[in-house]
């Protein structure tokens, strides 16, 4: 398949891997964080770590959209869904995220009608076709998905729809990266920058990471060769004593981002003073809500929300995993009390979550597997 197979070529991977290995100084440990859950998924899905020397470790970052949704927001969404005549919609990943009293799937088994959609425009179409329903879209995600929510809001307003609402949970990536950089218990040598977010915000917002924190950043694509090449570029910067923001994903990411998408976001949404991130706590100016001009579409204003903060389960160490302090398997409940069937934390839910990716794809002894695949 074109535009896919080229980026999964094992010969090229081997060539890149040997260049990476040549740059790795023996005795030195390298730790790179892939910020985006999409990268985590690719790394595990393709077995990419098999190509890395033992002293290069990938640390999985906070960029998994459903992983950072706090339990209270799930409960709020279920509360909205239980109001008369409401059809709640959300992305598929959201359906299994546990709130204080179960997930959307559990809630549907009781008394709600929460349906999976593939785009906010699908929710809008339902609202158009079913005027008797109040259709709410639970908007989640980083700057990647915010523009589609924004465009949908603009269209809903232009059409004068009265039965379409957005429950906004959009978050922004830079404050989360900054929180991680400021966290005292972390040592990182560089970042794989989030490719999809960067198609919207561009590469400039990362410049402070290189300038103020002295960590190189390479904005990376999502195919396995993209990631391997980005690791090579990070290693090259380190070996040359450089520290800069570089764009490996140039075929998609413009240096200045996408001004039309950014404009749509600012037309419809504004920064919240603070927002709770699952496992990371409250982060200032890290999330978006609807502007006053869109109050009629704002589920937070139209519906009365309990808005209760639900503390993460005590045993859950998602925060440490999201910050990259713990590897998934180092969490106390990983794989025993917390599994994809019965997730305690959000990292175990989405296929982009570090724990779910590791549990589903990476949970085995590499040595035993090598023996098995050679046998």
């Amino acid at each position, binding site marked *: 398949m074109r535009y896919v197979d080229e980026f999964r070529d094992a010969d090229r991977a081997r060539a890149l891997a040997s260049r990476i290995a040549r740059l790795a100084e023996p005795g030195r440990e390298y730790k790179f964080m892939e910020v985006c859950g999409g990268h985590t998924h690719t790394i595990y899905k393709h077995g990419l770590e098999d190509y890395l020397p033992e002293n290069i470790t990938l640390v999985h970052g906070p960029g998994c959209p*459903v992983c950072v949704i706090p339990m209270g927001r799930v409960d709020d969404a279920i509360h909205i869904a239980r109001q008369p005549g409401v059809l709640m919609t959300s992305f598929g990943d959201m359906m299994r995220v546990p709130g204080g009293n179960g997930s959307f799937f559990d809630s549907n*088994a009781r008394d709600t009608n929460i349906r999976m959609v593939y785009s906010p425009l699908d929710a809008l179409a339902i609202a158009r076709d079913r005027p008797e329903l109040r259709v709410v879209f639970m908007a989640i995600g980083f700057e990647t998905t915010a523009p589609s929510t924004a465009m949908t809001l603009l269209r809903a307003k232009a059409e004068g729809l009265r039965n379409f609402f957005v429950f906004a949970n959009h978050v922004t990536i830079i404050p989360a990266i900054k929180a991680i950089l400021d966290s005292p218990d972390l040592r990182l040598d560089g970042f794989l920058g989030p490719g999809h977010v960067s198609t919207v915000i561009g590469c400039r917002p990362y410049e402070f990471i290189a300038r103020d924190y002295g960590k190189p950043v390479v904005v990376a694509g999502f195919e396995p060769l993209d990631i391997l090449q980005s690791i090579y570029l990070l290693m090259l910067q380190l070996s040359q004593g450089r520290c800069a923001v570089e764009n490996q994903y140039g075929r998609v990411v413009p240096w200045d981002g996408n001004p039309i998408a950014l404009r749509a976001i600012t037309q419809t949404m504004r920064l919240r003073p603070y927002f709770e991130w699952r496992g990371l706590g409250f982060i200032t100016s890290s999330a978006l809500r609807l502007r006053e001009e869109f109050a009629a579409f704002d589920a937070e204003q139209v519906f009365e929300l309990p808005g209760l903060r639900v503390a993460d389960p005590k045993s859950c160490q998602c925060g440490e995993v999201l910050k990259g302090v713990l590897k998934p398997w180092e969490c106390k409940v990983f794989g*025993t009390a917390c599994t994809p069937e019965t997730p305690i934390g959000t990292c175990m839910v989405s296929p982009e979550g570090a724990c779910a990716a590791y549990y589903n794809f990476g949970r085995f002894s590499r040595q035993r597997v090598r023996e098995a695949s050679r046998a």
Partner: protein
Amino acid sequence: MSVAHEQVAHEQQVLARIERVRRGSARLREQRVTMAHGAGGKATQTLVESVFLRRLGNPVLDRLEDAAELVAGGARLAFTTDSYVVSPLFFPGGNIGDLAVNGTVNDLAVQGATPMFLSAGFILEEGFAVEHLERIVASMAEAAAAAGVQVVTGDTKVVQRGGADGCYINTAGIGTMVPGVHLSIASVRPGDVVLVSGPVGEHGVTVMLARGELNIEADVTSDTAPLSGMVAALLRAVPGVRALRDATRGGVATVLNEIAKAADVSVVVDEVAVPVRPPVRGTAELLGIDPLYVACEGRMVAVVGPDDAQTALDTLRSHPGGEQAAIIGRVAADPPGLVLLNTVFGGTRIVDLLVGDPLPRIC
């Protein structure tokens, strides 16, 4: 011991503990049935084990094969049942009618039986168009004729509007076991070779697209077809076939996991060898789902001894519908209970059972 080695040792301890937890019996935690319980993955297994097997279990049912093997009046019989609730009822390549016949025929065939007789039970929603029902039943008749089976008993119920989604069908089937053939996924052993009878994932992708929710257009049709002819040919050429399974709900990945668990072996699959047609691959890539988990309705997984692999492959390929059959992997002793994939990219990963339906990823 260096820090790195200590880490590796700790990781191994954690992994060993997880495998012990996984081998323990499943416990149903939910108070109510969720959609995941019907998806064929872990949630379904838990429901089956903790509710159905716990109360209804017996040596035949406990084997959880695609069909039960019974001895009655000296004859070896296979008996199976399946319900069909596909939405939409009509999709490119077929409809719920031929699906209901082929699915049950295939469950018998992969058990090593010659399908003979079917029952058909209909649950119809008030207001359902008779014209649609006629089309469905006509397809059932065609499929039954193609598979050489007869529908010999049936039942009809009508429920109030809203009580069903148009038309649900249950079929049960009886077949006679091919003499001398004993197929069981528990008999699979290290060194065996794993084949699929054709490109995977076509039925599932077709139905997903036919729902019209995705705005993706792709030239793909359901693979719904009877496997009985192909199975008969394979068993004639390779009487020592270890196991066959049709890769329906949960796809090839789920079948391979069932094999790994039942036989306490590992199955090592080469991703590059798995036949997937480009429109299926493209759609799956777009949605972020893996074709290995997507349902087929006319494909089977076959496991044969290493010396039979080439004969099996040649036989499948020379049979209509099996032209793209392929050897996709082999069975190893270690690590038991796991399915591993050697990726196209050159890495290795686990192919685990899904909890529920594959959910599309966000970005």
